[in-house]
């Protein structure tokens, strides 16, 4: 068989149909003519001859059909025919078509938008060479909160060096860390996302320069850095696209840095959703590397043949030596022993790292599930519409069957309509998704964080759309196609035939659809209520302190040439200046701003009880500024000086934990030694009411406060909380102006405390907003579905109702006839929905706050809401049934 010729000939008959047809016509005509001639030669009359030939050979048309149907192209042709016919039919009912395409488009669009986001944050690999070879080295189980921990920091730099020098599993290793730093001086200061890297970072990743050169091992040297590399977006935005060859000179952290190159546009660093601005090489500080700052992430490319397990085993074997050699100084024995027993392991790193937590991923997957269910509801409505359409076209179908159309062809015909609708919906969906996914990002954005994701349509997104469209098509088109093609010929052909009672088989599918719709909507509504109520619980939670009208200022003065001894004094000076600004009622410094996610704790001993407590050093007005009431004892005063005895104020949880049943005032607590924080004995002088600490979700931990003057690790910075009757924006502008004029070299950043707390709830807000929206949408879709089906049933049963009324049924009994129909379907649907929702809600339990996943109020509420919507939806058809005029209805018989 010569395939090319077959295809060519097939294509020829497809595209030059007329010519091919004519040729066949001619050939057959010749054939018949010859046959007739032969008969005449044998002595038959022309009439007889023609008749005989026809009888013998069958009609020319049948022969043509047979020839045409023999090639593969005939399949394509009938397919095109079906599609053309479907398009014509759809054009004839534009309202149905538009509604169907819009519904599908919205549904597919919403699904795709969320999938795009998931794809961008979760499924895509880093835009570097062979990302699948990348693995990260971390301490199995984490470092248990030892030392200082930076974002994405797994190991210390001494650990990185040890690993680099001893490992055998990786063909190459590199390290990186991120932190926000400042460019420029004085009022020109702006912060940037810094990416600190080992010299071989770009080579190992296989990133090529977009301009100039990238960093190389030779750039690692003693601090300060002298060369840096800009990201494409930063280069475009802040550096005016200048040519690095001609020298781009910046001040970074007070030292001159030359930007020698630009990374390609697709490279955003290692943190998905948070592009770096400037990459700088690690430098060797004069004082040596610290062993207690967990700041670097260590990654490498596995050697060929090495799996993660094998690498982990190898790293684990090396661990004792590596940790022994890098013990952080100044810890107590228990901590040191714990450190020496850490074990390293290798983890996959082809996706890079993300600022989203595991629960954020759960939320995103959940959202995808929610939109998927909404799409299914929409499909159910479409299936219903198609079923009804099928009923109205029963006669057409019966006629076609009578004329010999095979059931298979009819099914194909109906499916073509579905395929067309699904395809149009998919196209519209992709267009919508492009817009929706960007809108979704805006929902996720907060005051100082606009996530940057690559939302381009990749093959994963497109195949997702494809499979969703196909699935929807199957869901909404197959059942009606099967059903409609099974018309009862004789019944349907009888004009105006209409069963006098409800034909159970006909409606059973529609009933099933209603039950499913109700069940899905109850599930979605219950989920929506859970998330909305959980969000409400968080927002209305009383954290035990003031949120409104508090401005948080971060003041940094590492650029002023103050000696270390001058920092504390300068902090007091700045605080006094803040307090003197008109409109400021009170202000206080604190080493930790509450509810910002951060934490600082010390191991302590109270009497014989050991444990940990959060520690914050605050200036005297802190409790007043934050409106935290004092239960007993006193707060701090200006008499608590650096030289006076060490005193502490603790919270109620601290007392319950460490001093149950004892009067806390006058008791002492002892902190365990840590570098910069000598072991200190504090006398408790006061107790405050409990407040939340690092986040609203966390239960209040034991907390201790000490006077700012006694802070042993004062740095060149301070946080100031400011209470003012003026709006925060005004306060910020005034402070920026008055402080900025006087201290041009002080870095200043301001936040609205309340906004910052809300920004911390962004995922909860998104979940509440979207699940609420989709929940309502689901209820609406279900109501529309119920309305549609009941209206249809009422129309179909009009005769029956008419007869019942003629026989004396009153309006109420007719009404109850319709409502009974709905009530049963509703009851079954709600029951299924509640069960499904209860089961799925367990999986989302960790995302909820302040209510359990099986919260009865929520489930009752969701069921009630849906029942009300459903009854409303069935009221209109019921009223129509009540108004049936028996005479009119009966006359149709």
């Amino acid at each position: 068989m010569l395939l090319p010729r077959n295809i060519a000939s097939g294509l020829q008959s497809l595209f030059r149909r007329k010519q091919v047809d004519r040729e066949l016509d001619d050939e057959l005509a010749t054939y018949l003519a010859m046959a007739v001639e032969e008969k005449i030669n044998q002595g038959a009359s022309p009439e007889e001859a023609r008749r005989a030939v026809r009888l013998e050979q069958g009609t020319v048309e049948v022969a043509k059909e047979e020839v045409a149907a023999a090639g593969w192209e005939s399949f394509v042709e009938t397919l095109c025919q079906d599609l053309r016919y479907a398009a014509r039919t759809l054009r004839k009912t534009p309202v149905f078509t538009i509604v169907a395409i819009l519904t599908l488009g919205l549904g597919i669009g919403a699904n795709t938008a969320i999938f795009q986001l998931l794809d961008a944050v979760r499924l895509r690999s880093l835009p570097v060479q062979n990302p699948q070879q990348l693995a990260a080295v971390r301490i199995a189980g984490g470092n248990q909160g030892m030392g200082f921990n930076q974002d994405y920091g797994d190991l210390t730099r001494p650990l990185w060096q040890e690993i680099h020098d001893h490992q055998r599993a990786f063909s190459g290793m590199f390290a990186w860390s991120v932190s926000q730093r400042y460019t420029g001086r004085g009022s020109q200061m702006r912060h940037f996302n810094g990416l600190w890297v080992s010299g071989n970072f770009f080579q190992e990743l296989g990133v090529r320069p977009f301009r100039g050169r990238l960093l190389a091992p030779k750039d690692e040297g003693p601090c300060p850095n002298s060369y840096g590399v800009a990201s494409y977006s930063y280069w475009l935005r802040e550096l005016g696209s200048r040519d690095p060859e001609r020298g781009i000179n910046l001040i970074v952290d007070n030292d001159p840095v030359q930007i020698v190159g630009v990374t390609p546009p697709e490279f955003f660093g290692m943190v998905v959703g948070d592009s770096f601005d400037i990459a700088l090489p690690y430098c060797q500080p004069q004082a040596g590397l610290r062993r207690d700052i967990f700041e670097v992430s260590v990654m490498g490319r596995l050697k060929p043949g090495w799996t993660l397990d094998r690498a982990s085993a190898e790293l684990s074997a090396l661990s004792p030596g590596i940790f022994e050699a890098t013990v952080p100084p100044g810890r107590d024995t228990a901590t040191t022993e714990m450190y020496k027993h850490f074990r390293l392991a290798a983890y996959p790193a082809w996706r890079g790292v993300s600022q989203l937590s595991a629960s954020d991923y759960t939320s995103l997957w959940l959202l995808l599930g929610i939109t998927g269910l909404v799409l299914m509801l929409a499909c159910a409505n479409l299936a219903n519409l198609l079923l009804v359409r099928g009923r109205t076209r029963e006669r057409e179908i019966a006629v076609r069957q009578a004329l010999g159309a095979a059931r298979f062809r009819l099914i194909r015909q109906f499916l073509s309509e579905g395929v067309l609708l699904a395809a149009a919906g998919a196209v519209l969906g992709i267009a919508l998704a492009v817009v929706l996914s960007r809108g979704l990002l805006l929902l996720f954005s907060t005051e100082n964080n606009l996530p940057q994701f690559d939302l381009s349509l990749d093959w994963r997104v497109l195949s997702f759309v494809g499979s969703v469209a196909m699935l929807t098509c199957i869901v909404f088109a197959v059942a009606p196609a099967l059903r409609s093609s099974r018309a009862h010929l004789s019944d349907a052909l009888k004009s105006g035939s209409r069963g006098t009672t409800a034909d159970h088989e006909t409606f059973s599918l529609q009933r099933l659809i209603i039950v499913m719709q109700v069940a899905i909507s109850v599930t979605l509504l219950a989920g929506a209520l859970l998330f909305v109520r959980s969000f409400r619980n968080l927002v209305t939670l009383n954290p035990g302190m003031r949120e409104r009208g508090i401005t948080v200022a971060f003041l940094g003065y590492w650029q002023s040439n103050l000696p270390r001894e001058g920092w504390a004094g300068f902090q007091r000076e700045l605080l006094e200046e803040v307090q003197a600004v008109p409109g400021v009622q009170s202000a206080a410094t604190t080493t930790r701003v509450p509810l910002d996610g951060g934490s600082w704790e010390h191991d302590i001993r109270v009497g014989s009880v050991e444990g940990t407590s959060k520690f914050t050093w605050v200036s005297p007005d802190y409790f007043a500024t934050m409106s935290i009431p004092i239960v007993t004892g006193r707060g701090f005063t200006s008499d608590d000086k650096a030289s006076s005895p060490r005193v502490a104020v603790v919270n109620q949880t601290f007392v319950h934990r460490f001093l149950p049943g004892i009067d806390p005032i006058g008791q002492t607590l002892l902190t365990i030694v840590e570098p910069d924080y000598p072991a200190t004995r504090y006398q408790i002088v006061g107790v405050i009411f409990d407040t939340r600490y690092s986040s609203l979700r966390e239960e209040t931990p034991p907390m201790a406060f000490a006077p700012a003057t006694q802070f042993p690790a004062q740095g060149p910075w301070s946080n100031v909380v400011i209470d003012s009757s003026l709006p925060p924006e005004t306060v910020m502008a005034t402070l920026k102006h008055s402080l900025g004029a006087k201290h041009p070299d002080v870095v200043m950043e301001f936040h609205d405390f309340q906004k910052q707390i809300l920004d911390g709830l962004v995922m909860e807000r998104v979940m509440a907003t979207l699940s609420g929206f989709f929940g309502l949408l689901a209820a609406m879709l279900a109501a529309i579905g119920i309305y549609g089906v009941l209206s249809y049933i009422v129309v179909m049963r009009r005769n029956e109702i008419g007869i019942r009324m003629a026989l004396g049924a009153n309006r109420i009994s007719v009404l109850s006839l319709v409502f009974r129909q709905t009530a049963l379907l509703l009851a079954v649907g709600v029951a299924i929905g509640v069960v499904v929702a209860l089961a799925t809600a367990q999986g989302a339990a960790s995302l909820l706050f302040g209510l359990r996943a099986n919260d009865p109020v929520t489930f009752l509420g969701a069921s009630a809401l849906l029942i009300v919507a459903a009854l409303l939806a069935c009221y209109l058809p019921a009223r129509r049934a009540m108004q049936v005029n028996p005479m009119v209805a009966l006359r149709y018989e």
Partner: protein
Amino acid sequence: MPDTQGDLVQGTLNMLILKIVALEPIHGYGIAVRIEQMSQGVFKVNAGSLFVALQRLHRAGFIKSEWKASENNRRAKYYVLTEHGRKKLGSETREWGKQVAAIARILEA
């Protein structure tokens, strides 16, 4: 009049057509007549099956066609065997001979 489709062993129509086309270039009706004559009326081919078979053989490249004037001055499509078709006919004939002989041995046993 036996139903040719039913009586012809599956696939033999193709072989018969190839054989007849191999003798000389011939048009569709000629093929039908030849099959009937040469089988002495045992096989009759109707237009439908004939042209489907011709189309298949054409597609497969065993025969080619051209329009020519017929013996009594009609325009007719003449089929000619290709080299490919000749080989096919050879192999089909050998295969057929083997099968017939085998069947005969079984039936005579």
